[in-house]
């Protein structure tokens, strides 16, 4: 198929070639006309001169009387180089003394029609035979005329230059200008329109041609409308109409992306299936409008609670899915879930009705409980039913052992917080004895937790929890304070120089204020730092 550019290129080429063909034809025709006029002029000159000689000739002895006539003819015409009057091969008269012999008759022009410009440019000699009479006897003489090469060449080349300068070059320039105009006003806009029609991106700027501008404008409007409609369709296909939350399609899209990402980074995320408890009752008692309003409110609450990068979607009537990732540990995860439960459990005012809600949450982990969206949904749904069975308004993890472990960790964390408040921790100092001397050379402070119901709990159990929950900072501060205070007491009481070792968690070293706090404690107790071993 022909492109616009090629079409116009071809069209202009045809026009230009046609014009040039016309110019060439006209040029050749004009050259021929000139040649004809020159030939005619030469013929007339020869005829007239021949007639004058013929009618005035008496005898060969008086032939010189015609020399002035020949010289005059040559002098009067720029096109004539010389004229010769000859009898047979004998030159009787010549206006050019350098001519000693006659040119061959074959090289002479004797008929004066259809002489081409090319032929004239070959410096031909024209000749006619004239009848003179000596008494009443016919004496044929030959009158020859040589043309002026320079004048001829100049005469014809002038026309050539005129044609080139007035027709060939202007035509070329006009054609090029036309090409440029067509290119910028028509072809380029058409190409831009074509690209825009294909890709519907980057609309071209306004065109000069009215019709093209109308097409451009229509396309812009159409594509704008299509884009808006497309966006609306896309949004409606991925958004829950009631809550404005992503729907199942959108959830799956984002989930698939997250699965790929987590697969690459070998990380975990939690898939939460949230079902409002007793929502049917609300619908039945307060009506569906209130139910819908409540759902919208719940959606808003959950969006506030979760982080920006977490995923939330409404997948059923009163069913929501929240996907949580990038949590430090299950305790942090549990905190987030607890926040959701807590927020949902508040009393909400829907319309004029105070409504108390709660939710049961089933949790499945990627990749442990499923590696695709369908399995994760199914397993979290199962876990959610477990939560319902267990009395609603609670979390249930799909894997029972994990469920138990997390519950235990959460319980321990809660106990740990209480322990800090209730001062259930104690520091024990284990002496360090020099075996050689049997003397005590130092002591290591060791924290111990006396749980009110569970008795002594090993640091191996609570220290990791404290570190995971951030309680380690507070616990570490307490340990440090206690240990340094004890060292001061020992020094005051016994003036000993025992080296006291204090265990510091890595979490504490990561705490920005650790060193400043440690320094201020040392200053507070006025201790020699040499007696502290961290």
């Amino acid at each position: 198929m022909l492109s616009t550019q090629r079409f116009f290129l071809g069209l202009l080429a045809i026009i230009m070639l046609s014009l040039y063909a016309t110019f060439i034809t006209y040029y050749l025709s004009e050259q021929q006309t000139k040649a004809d006029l020159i030939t005619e002029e030469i013929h007339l000159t020869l005829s007239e001169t021949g007639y004058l000689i013929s009618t005035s000739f008496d005898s060969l002895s008086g032939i010189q009387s015609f020399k002035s006539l020949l010289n005059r003819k040559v002098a009067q015409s720029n096109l004539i180089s010389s004229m010769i009057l000859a009898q047979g091969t004998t030159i009787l008269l010549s206006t050019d003394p350098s001519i000693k012999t006659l040119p061959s008759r074959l090289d002479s022009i004797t008929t004066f029609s259809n002489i081409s410009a090319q032929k004239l440019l070959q410096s031909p000699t024209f000749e006619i035979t004239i009848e003179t009479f000596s008494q009443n006897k016919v004496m044929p003489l030959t009158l020859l005329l040589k043309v002026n090469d320079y004048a001829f060449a100049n005469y014809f080349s002038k026309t050539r230059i005129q044609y080139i300068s007035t027709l060939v070059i202007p035509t070329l320039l006009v054609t090029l200008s036309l090409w440029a105009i067509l290119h910028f006003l028509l072809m380029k806009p058409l190409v831009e329109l074509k690209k825009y029609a294909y890709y519907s991106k980057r609309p071209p700027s306004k065109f000069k041609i009215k019709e093209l501008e109308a097409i451009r404008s229509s396309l812009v409007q159409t594509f704008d409308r299509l884009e808006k409609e497309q966006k609306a369709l896309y949004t409606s296909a991925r958004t829950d109409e009631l809550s404005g939350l992503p729907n199942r399609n959108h959830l799956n899209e984002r989930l698939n992306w997250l699965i790929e990402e987590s697969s690459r980074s070998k990380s975990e995320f939690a898939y939460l299936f949230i079902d409002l408890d007793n929502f049917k009752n609300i619908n039945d008692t307060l009506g569906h409008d209130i139910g819908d309003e409540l759902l919208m409110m719940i959606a808003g609450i959950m969006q506030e609670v979760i982080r920006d990068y977490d995923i939330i979607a409404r997948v059923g009537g009163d069913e929501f899915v929240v996907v949580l990732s990038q949590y430090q540990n299950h305790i942090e995860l549990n905190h987030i879930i607890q926040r959701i439960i807590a927020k949902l459990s508040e009393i909400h005012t829907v319309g004029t009705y105070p409504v108390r809600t709660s939710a049961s949450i089933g949790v499945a982990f990627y990749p442990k409980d499923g590696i695709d969206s369908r399995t994760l949904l199914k397993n979290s749904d199962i876990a959610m039913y477990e939560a319902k069975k267990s009395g609603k308004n609670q979390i249930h993890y799909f894997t029972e052992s994990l469920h138990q472990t997390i519950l235990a960790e959460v319980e321990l964390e809660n106990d740990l917080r209480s322990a800090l408040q209730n001062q259930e921790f104690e520091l024990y100092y284990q002496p360090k004895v020099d075996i050689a001397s049997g003397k005590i050379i130092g002591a290591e402070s060791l924290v111990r937790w006396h749980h009110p119901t569970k008795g002594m709990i090993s640091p191996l159990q609570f220290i990791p929890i404290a570190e995971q929950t951030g309680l380690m900072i507070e616990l570490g501060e307490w340990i440090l304070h206690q240990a340094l205070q004890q060292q001061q007491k020992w020094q005051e009481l016994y003036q000993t120089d025992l080296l006291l070792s204090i265990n510091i968690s890595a979490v504490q070293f990561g705490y920005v204020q650790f060193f400043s706090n440690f320094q201020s404690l040392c200053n507070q107790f006025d201790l020699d730092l040499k007696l502290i071993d961290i």
Partner: protein
Amino acid sequence: MLKNLKVILMIIMIALAGLTGCSSQPEPPIKLIANSWIGYSPLFYAKEKGWLKPLNIELSTVVSLGESIMTYKTGHFNGLAGTQYEFAKLQKQNANLVPIIMFDRSNGGDMVMSNLSINSLKKTTESVDVYLEINSINSAVFKDFIKAHELENKTFNFINKDPLKTLAQIKQSPITQPLIIVTYSPYNFELSKHGLNIIASTKNIEDILVVDALYVKKSCLTEHKAHFIKLKQLINQAIQDLHTNPRDYYEKVKPYLENSSYEEFSASLNQIEWLNSELSEPLIKKLNHTSFPIRDLL
């Protein structure tokens, strides 16, 4: 859209019409030559009456028959008026001419004039200057003259001049020696004023036949036959007008006949025999005998 198409079509049609108008050149005229001769006066009359223009015929006039030939040879003419002598001469040079309209037969119109009588010429021992246009019917007339009067042994000094130049020379230089001038009407009238008398003419030289006709190229005749038929009718009309109102005819053709007087003009008319009507049988025989083609006569 349809409206635009109509406008474009209209513009194209106007442009084409304009181009056609510009490019339609007038048809080139039929160019004829004739010299001053009473026999060709119907052509001059037709020209003066404006009859030639509608036929697209341009008539150029020259002084002599020799000049007619020379001018015709330039290649710009379609035909010429002349005697059978000029016709034969041009035919030899492949002129491809054909006589189409007969004008006249010289019946005293071509003549030999001299300051001596024939007897005096016979007796003279001096060289006799002979003024004539060698390259014309003059030569034939003179040849027949010397043959008829047995003057072959005389010494003649031929001077090749057309009749007008001859007349000019006679006017300038007094005649001091035996002289013969071969000429034709109307130049004889002026020459007779300078002591020259007609001693022989086509009226009394029986051997010579001098007919005047219009010769055109065959191709031109083929292309414009209708024009020439019309021209022939106009020539007949001119001769009829001459007979009807010779004075008016004379006034029209006077400038072409060296401004001769009405009397001279009338005398000239007596020296020719019009051949515009049917040719007589004897004349046809004579013309056939001289291989003068009359098949294409209109």
